[in-house]
Structures are given as structure tokens and as C-alpha cells.
């Protein structure tokens, strides 16, 4: 649960992060206040853009956090998002129906997550290694399929488009896909903290031995968590394609990297579904604002990335510190 102590911790980290960021900016010869004011002015004012940008990140944040709560490190949110995006696109293209596309895309992500979980549980293969390899397999597979089979003959570097009937619209400044993402995050919150499955997941994560003692199988929790996580990532991919990009380009620029950013989002949100909504909004704003920093100050675009890196690290430090202390204390006990 998000309590006051955790909230203060996050706030202090944010302040510290901006101070460290300011020092970096000064060292590189930029005016920190100017850069920050641009970052906030442009990052958080275009509401629809911000919400759209946050949507897939909320989902990949969940894709990292849910397995993380059950004790699995899911770095495969990336490929789970790819398959969701790609299959969602294809289904939308052939059926013109957004609902079927969403179901197929989420399920594809879920199954891919489950696959990694199965290898971990039944074959003892480290999920990080499997997931990284799966990420690359799907990156190239989808890049190949888009370039060779499902390209748009009118714009040859893009995939076939999502037909008008299957696009998820924005209602004014309110992005419908963001609403869906928030609803899913709340559902996951309920699932984790108010249901039997959620309880088992959390106990398995904290102590597999206690779970076993209590009479439930921690391995099953791993499978469930990977299924749920993969489903979130897959859904994130579908929402992005049906609601924002309407196609995927052959270098996958629109979907690449979202799964990795999701890890940062999850850590920032302290693995809490509601926290993830906010951390995703916060980081999306920084990402959006970062692009304007280059335009307005002439700073290289990498500067904004550096700043985001510093902020994410500073925010993650207390969490990492507590995890480390916990491990050490457990080791002594």
C-alpha cells in the first residue's frame, strides 16, 4: 500500500533528482531553470499527448511489476508488447473490429509471458535470459513480417494500416485508451490486494517457503503472474497501435523500448498498480518535454535522456536500498 512514508520518500527522491540533474546541466553549460521550465511547460501541458504516451507505459509497468511481486524478473515486457501490437494490428486490419483485436493482442502477450514462466518453472531456465532472447526473436520476426508481408503498398516503410472502424478515438482531450489502461491498472490493484489469487502471489514473492507451508504452490503463482504481466504488455501494444500510431513502421520505432522503460516505471511506482499510473504520467511528461529542450535550448537530445536517467536512478535508490537491506537482514537471520 502507498503510505505516507513511501510518499515522502518519493518526493524527496524527486527533489534530489532534480538537484543532481541541475548540477549535470550546469557542468554541461546549460541553464538548469530554463531547461526545467521547458521540460515542465511542454511535457505536461498537451494533455491528450501525455495520456496517450502514458498508456503503453502503464501497461509495460504492470508487466514488470506483477511478476516482480511474485518474485520473477520480467524483462520480456518488450516482446510481449510487440506481439500484442502486431497481432492486434493484423486482427484489426482483417476484421475491422477493435474488441477482437484487443482480446487477441492481450492473449498473445499473456501466452508469451506464460511461455517464459513455464521455462522457468518446469525447466529451471532463468527468466531474464529467456526473455532477452525472446525479445530479439520477436523484434526481428516482426520487422521481417512487416517489411516482407504486411507492408502498406502506398507507404512501403509502414505496415498495413488500422482501418477507421477499428481505431480507438479520443473524446476531446480525453484519450479513451488511457481510460482503458487506468481501468486495467485498478483491476490489477483489486486483484492483487483483495483477492485470493493476489494474496497467493504476494506471499509467494515475499517468501516461497511460507507459501509452500501455507499449502499453495509458489510455482503456480509465477505462472499466473507471468500470464497477467504478459497480458498487460500485450494490451499496451494493441492500445498503442489502435489508438495512436495506427500502423507500425518497419524499424519498429514506435514500439521499441517501451518494455524496457516499463521497468523504470514499475520501480518508480513501487510495484503498485496505482503508483504505476502516476509514475507513468510523470515519466511520459519528461520524455515529451525532453524533445522540446533540444528545440528551445539547442542542447543535444541525449541531454534530456541523461536527465531522465538521473531522475529514475535517484527515485529508485531508496527502493533498491531497502531491498538490499532486507536481503542483508534476511541473510543474517
Amino acid at each position, binding site marked *: 500500500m502507498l503510505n505516507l512514508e513511501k510518499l*515522502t520518500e518519493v518526493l524527496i527522491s524527486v527533489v534530489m533528482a*532534480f*538537484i543532481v540533474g541541475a548540477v549535470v546541466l*550546469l557542468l554541461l553549460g546549460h541553464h538548469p531553470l530554463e531547461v526545467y521550465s521547458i521540460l515542465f511547460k*511542454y511535457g505536461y501541458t498537451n494533455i491528450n*499527448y501525455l495520456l496517450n504516451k502514458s498508456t503503453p507505459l502503464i501497461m509495460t509497468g504492470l508487466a514488470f511489476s506483477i511478476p516482480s511481486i511474485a518474485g520473477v524478473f520480467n524483462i520480456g515486457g518488450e516482446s510481449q508488447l510487440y506481439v500484442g501490437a502486431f497481432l492486434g494490428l493484423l486482427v484489426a486490419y482483417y476484421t475491422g473490429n477493435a474488441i477482437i483485436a484487443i482480446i487477441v493482442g492481450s492473449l498473445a502477450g499473456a501466452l508469451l509471458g506464460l511461455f517464459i514462466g513455464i521455462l522457468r518453472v518446469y525447466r529451471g531456465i532463468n527468466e531474464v535470459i529467456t526473455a532477452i532472447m525472446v525479445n530479439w526473436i520477436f523484434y526481428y520476426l516482426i520487422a*521481417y513480417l512487416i517489411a516482407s508481408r504486411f507492408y502498406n503498398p502506398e507507404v512501403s516503410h509502414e505496415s498495413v494500416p488500422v482501418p477507421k472502424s477499428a481505431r480507438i478515438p479520443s473524446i476531446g482531450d480525453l484519450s479513451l485508451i488511457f481510460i482503458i489502461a487506468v481501468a486495467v491498472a485498478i483491476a490489477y490493484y483489486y486483484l492483487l490486494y483483495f483477492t485470493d489469487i493476489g494474496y497467493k502471489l504476494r506471499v509467494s514473492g515475499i517468501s516461497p517457503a511460507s507459501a509452500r507451508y501455507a499449502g499453495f504452490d509458489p510455482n503456480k503463482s509465477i505462472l499466473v503472474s507471468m500470464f497477467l504481466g504478459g497480458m498487460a504488455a500485450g494490451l499496451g501494444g494493441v492500445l*498503442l497501435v489502435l489508438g*495512436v500510431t495506427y500502423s507500425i513502421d518497419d524499424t519498429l520505432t514506435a514500439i*521499441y523500448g517501451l518494455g524496457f522503460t516499463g521497468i523504470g516505471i514499475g520501480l518508480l511506482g513501487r510495484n503498485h498498480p496505482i503508483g504505476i499510473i502516476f509514475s507513468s504520467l510523470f515519466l511520459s511528461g519528461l520524455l515529451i518535454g525532453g524533445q522540446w529542450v533540444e528545440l528551445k535550448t539547442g542542447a543535444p537530445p541525449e541531454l534530456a535522456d541523461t536527465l531522465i536517467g538521473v531522475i529514475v536512478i535517484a527515485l529508485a535508490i531508496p527502493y533498491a536500498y531497502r531491498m538490499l537491506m532486507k536481503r542483508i537482514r534476511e541473510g543474517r537471520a
Partner: protein
Amino acid sequence: MRKMGLVLSLVGLLLVSIAAGCIGGTTETQEKKVKVAILFDVGGRGDLSFNDMAYLGAERAKKELGVEVEYMTPKSKEDMVPLLEQLAQSKEYDLLVLVGFLWTSPLNEVADKYPDQKFALIDSTTGKVRQNEVDILFREQEVAALMGVIASGMAYELGGDTIGAVAGMDIPPLWKFHIGYLFGAKYFEKKTGKPVKLLWQYTGTFGDTQVGYNTAMQLLQQGAKVLYGLAGLTHVGMFDAVRDWNEQGRGKALAMGQDASQEWYAPKYIPISGAKRVDVAVYDAIKMVVDGTWKGGIITLGLKENGVGYWDLDGVRQFAEFAKEAGKLKDMTPDEVVQIVKEQREKYIKPYVWDIVHELEEKIKNGEIVFKTPKTHEEYEQIIRELEKGNLNAALEKGSVE
């Protein structure tokens, strides 16, 4: 403990703000300058090619036309539409220059909503004519034809009769390169009576150096003496393959780059590069706004407009200097690069080859011959088949080669 931290942070923040305030103090010029935003591809600057050339053109416009230029690199394709909308809404910029084909569909979505905002799309077209939009394309066939002649001449200097190309994807711009390159080879054949064979290979990727390396090795094993790189990052692998081929003593071969001057990468083995002057396109677009000669539509740049061609030694020096700034020019100075390239050009491109090149260049420039641009894959294949048979006129829309 925690409170202490908070207080310290706030004090820190205050100190930084004060320091920042002292350093600040920007002066603003009052006169109204033409203001341009250059929107790069998602790759952004530092590619020593497409995006850097756009930068070069904009910087030249800044110096020569006195315009104000700002740059932006979108994070990914999903950011392109909202950024474009926000920039257009701000009404701050007289012109938005969009660099590269990724901008095509975002522009198509946004352009009609902002009729007062001028857009210039470089190296792609939305296929629509709008008053507020200029699409600048290149006539790639013209540079490829010259490179075909040069490659053929170099192949004979190396004791072979086969030239090759490591191409990216099977897409319209590459069709144009293929037609031009083959045309050049056959033109050389016609003028000298020396037969030339062309090995053309699509790799299916613009971003994989390993694939470029393997493809180049295969072509070299099949006897290609000169390889033309037409695959973006992929053909950097081709450069490596050609260097290894020479240095491992497996034979003698040379490479040619495209778009930017790429000689600096391995000056001993890359005597020449074809030019696609993205910088000229960007400069021209800005100039149209400054001069008040703006007219919406599609513009193509060829040899005549200096939009394509081959890099002279000044160009080679400029890009060698870029590479040095980027820390990529390892153990050479730009001067040494230029020196080596000069020697290699003299050694491998003989005067009789230059004569043919200049003759062809002249014919293209004065409009005596104009190349076809295929609309479909069938048409493209048809032209290639005819060229292979030695029917050069099949590639021409206007004029003929006897």
C-alpha cells in the same frame, strides 16, 4: 533524519537556482527573422549521413540567409503527429522542415489542418499537392548512372569485369538506383566495347552491418571488383568486408558509398561516393521562404540542380572533419584522408572514364536524356530486363542513346 534531508535538499535547490539566475540573462534580438525548425528522423544527429546533412544545409541557410534555425529529434514515430501539431499551432515557425520518409504519414495527417503553416518534406512525398507543403525528391537514377560508369572503369583497372551493389530493401527509391547503376554499366560497355556484369543484391535491411558484411563477401566471391553501398547502415558492413578482402590478401576490390561522403571510413578502399544532397534540399526549401518564391508541390532535384552527384575533394574533407569531431576518424587527419582519396582516384579512375562520365553528365544536365521512374514492380523488372539485353533506351523517358 528524513526531515534533515528535506531541508538540505531545499537549501540545495535554492543555491542552484541562485547560481542559475546569475549565469542567465539572455539577450533577445528585436528584429523579426525568418524562423525555421528542422525536425530530424528518429535517429537524430550523429549518423554522419542523412540527418547530419540536413543539419549542414540548415547551418548554411543560417549563415547565408540569416534565418533562425532550431532543431528537434522526435523520440519515436508515435511522437511525430503530436509534435507536428503543437509546432504548427504555436505559429512560431515560418517553415517546418521534415527530414526523411518517416514523416510522410504524420505530415499527411496534419498538413490540411494548418493551411497557414508551411512544411517541407525531404526525400519523400505524401502524394498530395498542397499549397502549404513542398515535397523534395531526388532523381537517384542520375547519380547511380555516373557511379555505374565509374564502377565499371575501376573494375577494369582491378582486372575484372564485374561490379556489384549491396542494396537495402526492394522499395521504389532503390529501384531508381538499380536502373541508373545498370544503365551506367551498360553505357560504359557501349562506349568502350568492354562488357560489364552487374550483381545486384537486396539485403532486406537498412540497419544490419553483419548482413551487409556477409552479402558483400558473397558478391566478392562471385567476382565483383567494385561494390556500391545502397543500404544505409547495412553497407557500412560492406565497407568492412571490402577492407578485409584486401587486407587478408583474398583479392583486390573497392567500394563506393552513397548519400554522404563516406570516403573517410576507409579512404584506401573507398575512392568515391555518390552524393544525395539532403543539405541542398533543406537549404533550397528555406531559401524559397526567405525569397518569397514558395509554391506548394513536388520538386525533384537532380544533377542539374546539384541535388545529386559525386563528392569532390572539398566534400570529402568536410565529412572527414565531421567524422573527426564525432571521434570516428581514428588515426588519420582530414588532410590525410583527402590525400589518400586523391591518390586512389588518380590510380583507379582513368581519364577515359572521366571523359565518359562528363559526357553522360552533360547529356543529363541539359535534358538530352531523362530517366524513367517506374510506378510498379513489374515496370521496374521490365526495365531491368531490357537493360540487361543492352537496350539502354528502355530506361529513358526522353532522348535516346545510340
